[in-house]
């Protein structure tokens, strides 16, 4: 999601006047989702946010208050001496940061009495943010030049090869899906159809969530820790973890590759990267408006 956010910031950098609202929504949900996701990896964050700052004031509440002041300052128009919500739309950093901090504070409050309840809030918010970011991405696809590639990237992240399929490279997309699905299922088979635990290997743990599909499978398998499969050599267990991780990491490459596809390719035409289009020889039609 952080990568998504970076790409959209890049795409919208010259288009702020045209799509400030969508960009803000997208950044808000992406950043919030990323914060929520990271905090689920590190439950101690809840404890940290609930830690007393001074005189009973928690760190989370302090952050929320500071952020509220920053939002108010950003919305204040010194010329008219009024608060104008529209000004927030011109300041891309405000809304995402505000939403992220409020979410953190809410989760910390829920986790104060019951840490598991706080974690459930985080998980729910992270899931909602993923869904919202997809919706916002589709919206951006219609509003920003090059947005279709961003949509292909997100779709490609959700399902391996789907980005290529969406951009017209259907055979390639299907092959990508087949290869990664094979690697992933074989890895799961070796690890007894359980997910890689954080204790097994932190790097593999994060790597296995290289696609929305693997994240979904993890949820369905209830994130149970992997264990060696009976009847197989014990030394195959680590390799199984590697296979699961490799499927996720390879999907990052495939999804990023979808960003390079400029337009749906006609059947039989070479790829853009292999054979770039020649420069236009005719001047563009001028005076559009």
């Amino acid at each position, binding site marked *: 999601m952080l990568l998504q956010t970076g790409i959209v910031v890049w795409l919208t950098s010259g288009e702020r006047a045209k799509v400030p609202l969508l960009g803000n929504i997208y950044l808000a949900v992406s950043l919030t989702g990323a914060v929520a996701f990271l905090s689920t990896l590190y439950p101690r964050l809840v404890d940290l946010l609930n830690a007393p700052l001074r005189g009973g004031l928690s760190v989370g509440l302090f952050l929320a208050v500071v952020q509220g002041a920053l939002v108010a300052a950003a919305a204040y128009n010194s010329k008219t001496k009024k608060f104008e919500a529209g000004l927030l739309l011109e300041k891309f950093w405000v809304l995402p940061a505000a939403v992220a901090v409020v979410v953190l504070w809410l989760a910390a409050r829920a986790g104060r009495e019951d840490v598991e309840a706080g974690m459930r809030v985080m998980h729910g918010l992270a899931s909602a943010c993923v869904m919202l970011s997809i919706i916002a991405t589709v919206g951006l696809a219609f509003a920003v030049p090059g947005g279709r590639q961003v949509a292909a990237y997100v779709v490609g992240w959700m399902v391996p090869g789907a980005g290529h399929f969406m951009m017209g490279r259907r055979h390639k997309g299907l092959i*990508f899906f087949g*290869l*990664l699905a094979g690697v992933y299922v074989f890895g799961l088979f070796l690890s007894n159809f359980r997910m890689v635990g954080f204790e097994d290997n932190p790097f593999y743990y994060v790597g296995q969530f290289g696609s929305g599909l693997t994240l979904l499978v993890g949820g369905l398998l209830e994130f149970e820790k992997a264990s060696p499969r009976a009847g197989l050599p014990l030394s195959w267990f680590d*390799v199984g973890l590697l*296979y699961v991780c490799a499927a996720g990491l*390879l999907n990052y490459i495939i999804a990023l590759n979808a960003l390079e596809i400029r337009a749906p390719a006609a059947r039989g035409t070479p790829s853009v990267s292999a054979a770039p289009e020649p420069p236009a020889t005719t001047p563009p039609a001028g005076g559009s408006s």
Partner: protein
Amino acid sequence: MSYMLLYFPITFIALVVIEMTKRDDPKEILRRSLKDFGVMTGAFLIGGLIIFLINRYL
């Protein structure tokens, strides 16, 4: 040693995926993947042999 056999499929698939992101021609993808795979496996085997010889004789 049996788990070493699992090195081959994952390495080859990773190389195929990387080549597929760069070009479209299936023959070229296969040719380059096999070439890279051969180089990597060769380096892997030579490295293993050197380590074996060092442990065995030094």
